[in-house]
């Protein structure tokens, strides 16, 4: 019990400290911190509509938080979730078009862009696998580079973010955009690839709330990641490398292999963001869709102490802030929505700085 208390205390202290610093910034800018924070967190749970939106935003954060945590447990910092989820989202849309029977209308003429039209269940399955595999491959690259050449995963993942985002933007612009469409986005995926929205099952939740069953998958992944990390031999080996690589190697575990495995799983989890985004929300790849979900995953994982339960709670917390930023923009006189990014950075700094006390 004492241990649980300690695990919870410091993240809470870090958040409170960040709000104090954030409040001072708001004050210096010339707004009332209490009013600002009220708008930031007061619009998240008032109605089914609000709850739906908050959980919708939490969904990608759970995936990226888990992604960062799995890498963290192996002693790696995956700053590349952003690139991984972009690659995955594009790949998923591509499969959804190619195997979803997509027919586009170009200046009044119909053109079949698909190769094949899979039945719905199969199509969804293939799309989900694509998301995981595409993200996994993009995550594996820095893992292999680290294992093979020893080059630092932080620099490589950042570089791969730039490369991945440019790459999918290129493919979208030149090959998968409907000619004449002013927006940089692909054509729509086949109807069969759409996953159900939660509003179908909950009376009173408006249809336009984009919360989909991807949220349930995110909860399932929390459970699976927990079982993997703490109840299986593979998870034990992965954590052993994170705790002490040379001791693990002495015990017969190959750190290089674990690094590649951890980064691949991490990339696959980040790739799952594509499921909610492409199959459950926009039904296409939309350039620049991510609001920094990959980077926010780092804050989620740190605040959640790299534990799936903590990550779930931290993801909801950051989703509340993300949901609130637009209200801060509208309702306050001077504070812009970028305040959330500032708070997020300050929370990371405080959590990292207070970690010292949790080790004792």
């Amino acid at each position: 019990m004492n241990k649980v208390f300690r695990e919870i205390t410091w993240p809470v202290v870090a958040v409170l400290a960040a709000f104090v610093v954030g409040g001072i910034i708001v004050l210096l800018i010339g707004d009332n911190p209490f009013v600002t924070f009220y708008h930031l967190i007061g619009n998240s749970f008032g109605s089914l509509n609000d709850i739906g939106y908050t959980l919708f935003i939490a969904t990608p954060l759970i995936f990226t938080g888990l992604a960062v945590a799995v890498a963290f447990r192996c002693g790696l910092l995956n700053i590349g979730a952003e690139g991984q989820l972009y690659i995955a989202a594009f790949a998923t849309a591509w499969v959804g078009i190619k195997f979803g029977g997509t027919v586009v209308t170009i200046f009044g003429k119909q053109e079949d862009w698909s190769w094949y039209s899979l039945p719905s269940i199969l199509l969804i399955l293939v799309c989900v696998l694509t998301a995981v595999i595409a993200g996994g491959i993009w995550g594996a690259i820095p893992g292999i580079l680290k294992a093979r050449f020893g080059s630092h995963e932080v620099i490589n993942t950042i570089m791969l973010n730039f490369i991945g985002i440019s790459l999918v933007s290129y493919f979208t612009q030149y090959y998968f955009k409907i000619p004449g469409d002013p927006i940089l986005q692909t054509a729509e995926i086949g109807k069969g690839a759409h996953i159900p929205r939660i509003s179908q099952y909950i009376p009173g939740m408006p249809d336009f709330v984009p919360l989909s069953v991807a949220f349930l998958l995110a909860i399932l992944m929390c459970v699976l990641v927990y079982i993997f990390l703490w109840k299986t031999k593979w998870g034990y080996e992965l954590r052993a490398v994170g705790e002490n690589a040379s001791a693990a190697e002495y015990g017969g575990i190959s750190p290089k292999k674990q690094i590649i495995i951890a980064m691949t799983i991490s990339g696959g989890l980040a790739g799952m963001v594509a499921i909610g985004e492409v199959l459950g929300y926009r039904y296409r790849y939309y350039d620049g869709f991510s609001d920094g979900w990959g980077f926010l995953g780092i804050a989620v994982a740190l605040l959640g102490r790299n534990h799936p339960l903590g990550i779930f709670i931290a993801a909801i917390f950051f989703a509340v802030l993300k949901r609130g930023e637009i209200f801060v923009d509208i309702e306050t006189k001077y504070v812009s929505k970028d305040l959330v990014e500032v708070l997020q950075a300050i929370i990371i700094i405080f959590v990292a700085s207070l970690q010292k006390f949790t080790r004792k």
Partner: protein
Amino acid sequence: MGDILTPTFLLILLFSSIRLATPLIFAALGGMFSERAGVINIALEGLMLTGAFTAAVATYELSNPYIGFLCGVAAGAFVALIFAIAVIKFEADQVVAGFAVSLLMLGLPAVISSRIYDSAGSTQQIAKEFLLPDFYNRISIASILAFALIPVCWYVLYKTPFGLRIRAAGENPEAADAAGVNVIKLRYVAVIMSGVLAAAGGAYLSIGQSSLFTRGMTAGRGYIALAALILAKWKPIPVLFACLFFGFTEALAIQMQGVIKMPSGEDVPVQFIQMIPYVLTIIVLAGFIGLSRAPKALGVPYRKEN
């Protein structure tokens, strides 16, 4: 292809390389002091953004690029101090804290500039006469400063007691401590120096190369500077060549735009041009990292034994 390799083209390429290498040189030299003293500096990106934003605002408000430059540098020192407190006093994970500083400097300038200029994306345009001057329209005063700093940093690092202590703090802090060196204090100084230098590089971006600050305008240059530092094996003179190399690739990428055609006869898409420096960074790191050796105590917090 043959007709573009004229003397004029090569000269343009050379000056362009120097211009693009300049911010990298500042940042990499900053990173060198911090890392030679034992502190990993992923924060370089954020420190560059700090310098870029502060210099742009100060230059616009005061109409003087030199004061603007100094303001940027001072802000860099201040943010570096916060980073130093987190990683030295509180022993925060250096990579995590450094990344957080970079993240902070994506958001904070936007919050401030949307307050003072009603625009979160960028600051106000600075008139040309108030920018850092170029000589012969080619070489910026900041480039000259960057090149001059290379021998200065070499001298400081290898020929002064201060440099010796910095190197000792990064290689063997226990022994340095036993010899009477205040490792903690040295690391603070080294990290603050990195803030000063990286911010200078950022300031050049906003008030030299460009004429305003735009959100995230460093576009990963802080991380590329770090890659250059690793490629240069944490040594000042090779830092110059590593940065020139990265500057050259970026210059080549820009000059290639619209010149080199795809097999189909179309221009090479801009996305591929933009990717070149990032791809190259990965390749260079993979190819050369085995040959370079990091300071021994890099990334390890130092705790004084009683």
